[in-house]
């Protein structure tokens, strides 16, 4: 049985829900309230994850934390098509891992700016926003040239991978941290493509894109 320790407002938990949905996996949702209850810092939860962070995945007693690691585990274990974490192409896997690292940077900047604004976390909001815009410029340029080469997603030509799932939430939630995406038209187009993945699910603050033109 798969159990997800989850908060509806957590972007990192949302990544896992996105992939679970894409893979068609049922799971038990165990709510851990980040704010205001701070249940992720409770003694009971610290025994599950000593880092005091969400998400945590429990698969038949195997306890995993770290959203990027969870994505890779779920894709490797349950995705028979190997779309989400493709095998047999070292360069492709390395590119995906680069984007998983980029997702950590988004979490540390956009994610922290959002927590600062919405949940009163400490932090230098101007520095967080400045670094977030620097990352968005890198991302927008990458996607623009990917589109020019005919690619639709961050790491692969036609199909999304865990790279897209890992980067998507904190890109989409950036406005909640006061980080506009107005100057990033290629990022905006890519987020529509992610929203149109099969079995896409939304979360508070993230909306559907509507149907694509067929």
């Amino acid at each position, binding site marked *: 049985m798969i159990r997800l320790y989850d908060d509806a407002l957590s972007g990192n938990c949302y990544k896992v829900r996105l992939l679970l949905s894409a893979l068609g996996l049922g799971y038990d949702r165990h709510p851990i309230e980040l704010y205001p209850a701070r249940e992720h810092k409770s003694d009971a939860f610290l025994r599950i994850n000593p880092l005091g962070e969400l998400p945590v995945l429990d698969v038949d007693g195997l306890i995993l934390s770290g959203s990027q690691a969870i994505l890779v585990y779920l894709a490797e274990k349950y995705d028979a098509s190997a779309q989400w974490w493709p095998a047999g192409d070292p360069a492709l896997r390395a590119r995906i891992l680069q984007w998983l690292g980029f997702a950590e940077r988004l979490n540390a900047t956009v994610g922290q700016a959002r927590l600062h604004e919405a949940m009163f976390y400490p932090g230098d909001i101007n520095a967080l926003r400045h670094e977030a815009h620097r990352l968005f410029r890198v991302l927008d340029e990458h996607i623009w040239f990917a589109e020019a080469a005919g690619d639709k997603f961050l790491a692969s030509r036609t199909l999304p991978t865990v790279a897209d799932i890992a980067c998507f939430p904190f890109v989409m939630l950036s406005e909640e941290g006061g980080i506009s995406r107005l100057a990033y038209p290629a990022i905006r187009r890519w987020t529509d493509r992610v929203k149109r993945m099969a079995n896409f699910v939304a979360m508070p603050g993230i909306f559907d894109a*509507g149907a694509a033109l067929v």
Partner: protein
Amino acid sequence: MSEASVSQDRWFPLMRSEELVPRHVAQARLLGQEIALWRDDAGRANGWENRCPHRGVRLSIGINDGLHLRCQYHGWRFASGSGQCSFIPAHPDLVPAEAFRAHVYRLIERDGYVWASLGNPLTLPSIDIPSRWQSITLRSIAVNVAVRSVAAALDSGYPDAATVSVIDEFTLRAEMTGQEPGFVLFLLQPMSDAACLIHALVASDLLPGDGLSLLRRHNAALTALRDRLEAEAGAS
């Protein structure tokens, strides 16, 4: 330059036409005005004030269904072309009043760009490219400095340019030597008093078959210019 001192009665490019893809809503800013840009399924581009006339929510988070832009908040639908509200989900039998209408800006597509005007321009935008030459539009680059600073920097030189001339305060032309003899036309879009977007196109009788290296080369030159100007202004 302040926003108020710029004539409203002229055209500014907002986006490369091919980047305004179907079933998408783009977000632009011109002279401080936010604009929701979207293309209907017949190919018509719309540029509306980025504000739902119902509750003021940004229309750029709405849904382009191919015929209408649907506000994300209460689902009001606004028709392509007129901006007229055609359907209110909470009152499905009501014919929406004429006053329920998105504010529509003048928009035109020419020479590879979507152009907008906040006023009433008398002429059409046009780019003169010699017949038999080809042109390619570059990636547009946003810079967090005033348009005047960008124009001054371009006027003082551009890589592989023999000369740069100022056509008007928002338009410059570089005569190019090097790999693609011809010219680069810079079209500056004032986003606000403190930010502008550099649109640019390369026109030449000798364009490479695969334009990707050309695009990357100019992208590198323009982002270097952006980084230098923002560092000088302390705005980066």
